[in-house]
């Protein structure tokens, strides 16, 4: 126990380049010969909406009563070509997550909560389940590269179609569903052998570039007699160009998913190293729409790390028409919670987290299918840990809270409509955020690369 007389603190100096995390990574690679796959989104620190603050009303702006005066949150998507645009009561939508990655109970819970608060849900890579169609008043049907379970009857049943080019967690990559989650029902829906490690295609099978996509979108319009809005979803990379090309291709709505966006299973190297932060993406997307004079004609949905009411408000102020939430929604359902509610009582799940080698608050083991709280699983026992009733109640509360925060902020900025929030209402707390969001550093008129100086 006694220390050597020559020992100094510096003899235990941790390397910055080869810290414990990196050593662990190299050991893992050496042991397995395969890259790490995990769920959730980027965990590293990134410039984000937290780096922006609102300039509330004061003498130069007139505030609205925070608790009384009306502040509209009505949101309309798909006004460019669709005969039947999507009308939502709040600008907060549920992002696409597949049945397969999530249990059927969860898909039903999402539909119920979304319907109660007047917003939309979205299918995922694996087709539409009857549960989600039935429970969702407004359901967006994804058309993905894999086309798993893609069915013209479901196209006709959908309220909007979302052509998915990419996802913030993995732009340039396809989906992944490991064998544990490819149950008989999931396999059947996707026409795959049960239990295989499913790796989805990363490119669409029947079109290649933006000119082809224009014809593909036209096909979906002809197919639906020009009634349903067509969204195009891109993972945030070259956002300025990609949004322009999506508009060129005929999208009614463009969905831009930043690198904080989650996934149920992807290579860690993808999650942490490909794509740009949502904060940078939203500015580039809006810039593209401005450049094409498409503001108010093509709507923008922003996703990737939207967690709170302030996040929603900032996204809207930056120019988004709506946001989509995935991870936050799952956390509202109980993801990473230490317990779950079953048969009228709270049951502790920490042992199940331990069995996965993790703990509540750190879990990203969606890919294993062994979700301790029954969300990202196809296991018959585990999925009973989240019933649609309980899930829907929590999610409804979460969405209501976000919407209350959003309207509170909007009123404080003097807006009767959340869509009246504008970039001018924001300043940045860091130089990075100021440069990415093109808003001035707080207390200055400086937007790095654009204007002013200290």
């Amino acid at each position: 126990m006694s220390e050597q007389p020559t020992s100094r603190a510096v003899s235990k100096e941790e390397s910055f380049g080869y810290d414990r995390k990196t050593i662990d990574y190299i050991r893992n690679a050496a042991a397995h010969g395969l890259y790490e796959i995990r769920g959730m989104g980027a965990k590293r620190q990134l410039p984000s909406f937290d780096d922006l603050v609102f300039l509330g009303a004061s003498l130069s702006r007139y505030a609205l009563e925070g608790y009384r005066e009306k502040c509209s949150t009505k949101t309309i998507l798909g006004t460019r070509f669709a005969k039947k645009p999507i009308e939502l009561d709040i600008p907060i939508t549920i992002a696409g997550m597949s049945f397969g990655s999530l249990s059927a109970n969860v898909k039903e819970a999402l539909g119920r909560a979304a319907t109660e608060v007047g917003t939309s849900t979205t299918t995922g890579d694996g087709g539409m389940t009857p549960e989600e169609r039935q429970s969702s008043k407004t359901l967006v049907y994804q058309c993905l590269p894999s086309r798993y379970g893609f069915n013209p009857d479901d196209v006709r049943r959908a309220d909007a179609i979302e052509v998915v080019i990419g996802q913030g967690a993995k732009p340039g990559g396809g989906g992944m569903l490991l064998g544990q989650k490819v149950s008989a029902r999931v396999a059947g829906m996707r026409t795959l052998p049960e239990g295989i490690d499913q790796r989805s295609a990363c490119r669409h099978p029947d079109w290649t570039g933006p000119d082809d996509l224009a014809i593909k979108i036209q096909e979906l319009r002809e197919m639906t007699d020009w009634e349903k809005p067509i969204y195009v979803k891109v993972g945030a990379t070259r956002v300025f160009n990609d949004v322009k090309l999506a508009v060129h291709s005929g999208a009614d709505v463009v969905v831009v998913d930043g690198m904080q966006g989650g996934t149920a299973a992807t290579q860690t190297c993808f999650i942490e190293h490909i794509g740009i932060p949502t904060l940078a993406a939203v500015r580039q997307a809006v810039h593209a729409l401005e450049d094409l004079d498409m503001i108010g004609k093509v709507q923008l949905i922003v996703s990737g790390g939207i967690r709170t009411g302030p996040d929603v408000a900032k996204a809207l102020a930056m120019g988004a028409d709506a946001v989509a939430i995935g991870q936050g929604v799952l956390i509202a359902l109980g993801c990473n919670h230490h317990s779950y509610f079953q048969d009228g009582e709270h049951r502790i799940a920490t042992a199940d987290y331990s069995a996965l080698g993790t703990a509540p608050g750190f879990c990203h083991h969606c890919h294993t299918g062994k979700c301790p709280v029954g969300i990202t699983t196809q296991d018959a026992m585990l999925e009973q840990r989240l019933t649609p009733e309980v899930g829907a109640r929590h999610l409804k509360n979460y969405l209501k809270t976000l919407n209350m925060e959003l309207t509170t902020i909007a009123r404080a900025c003097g807006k009767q409509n959340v869509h009246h929030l504008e970039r001018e209402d924001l300043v940045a707390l860091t130089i990075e955020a100021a440069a990415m969001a093109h808003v001035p550093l707080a207390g200055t008129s400086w937007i790095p690369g654009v204007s002013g100086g200290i």
Partner: protein
Amino acid sequence: MDGLNFDLTEIPLRTVNNFLHKEAPGQGVKKVTIANPDGAHNIAVGLDFAVEIEVVGHAGYYAGGMNKLASITVTGSAGTGVAENMMSGRVHVKGFASNGAGASMHGGLLVIDGDAGLRCGISLKGGDIVVGGSVGSFSAFMAQAGRMVICGDAGDALGDSLYEAVLYVKGKIKSLGADAQIEPMSEVDLKTVKDLLAAAGTAFTGHDPKDFKRVASARGLYHWNADANQEY
């Protein structure tokens, strides 16, 4: 109402498609001729009733896309993605077909008298494709289920990352894709080829099923495996 003619130089395609979706199924329409297609895209997409459609001339992209129940004939050639995501019914191209013919089909029968371009039968999920001529590279890429009969040659990387789809090729295969392998023809395979050739029409029955090779998945990539050495 038995037979109907639409001339695309006189009536917009959108009106024709809309009629085929909304009114035609209830009116007992049995046969529709579409004249002067001039390579228009998205002809007769999303049909959902038993009807015979004859497209007299060349079709653009996605002819007969997402078809259910209808029997659609293109007398000329067809562009990219003919019969993509077909669920049931039949699409017959008398000329050539471009890229991605029968992409992600779930059911039905696609017959191409001539050659097909790149990625024929990509992402196939069911149903059958019979090609009288040759197919381009990357055909049956990631094909999951269903069958393809190729009477001519196949290009590079045939059947790359195949799942349970089975391919029958009469001519030369330039190269097989990852995890695809040639397997012996069983009695069942011979009968399958015979039946599919017969279903494709009299122009195909001259081929002898014994001349075909069977290509299917070695199933070596169904699970993550470090020893696969990136052979995905």
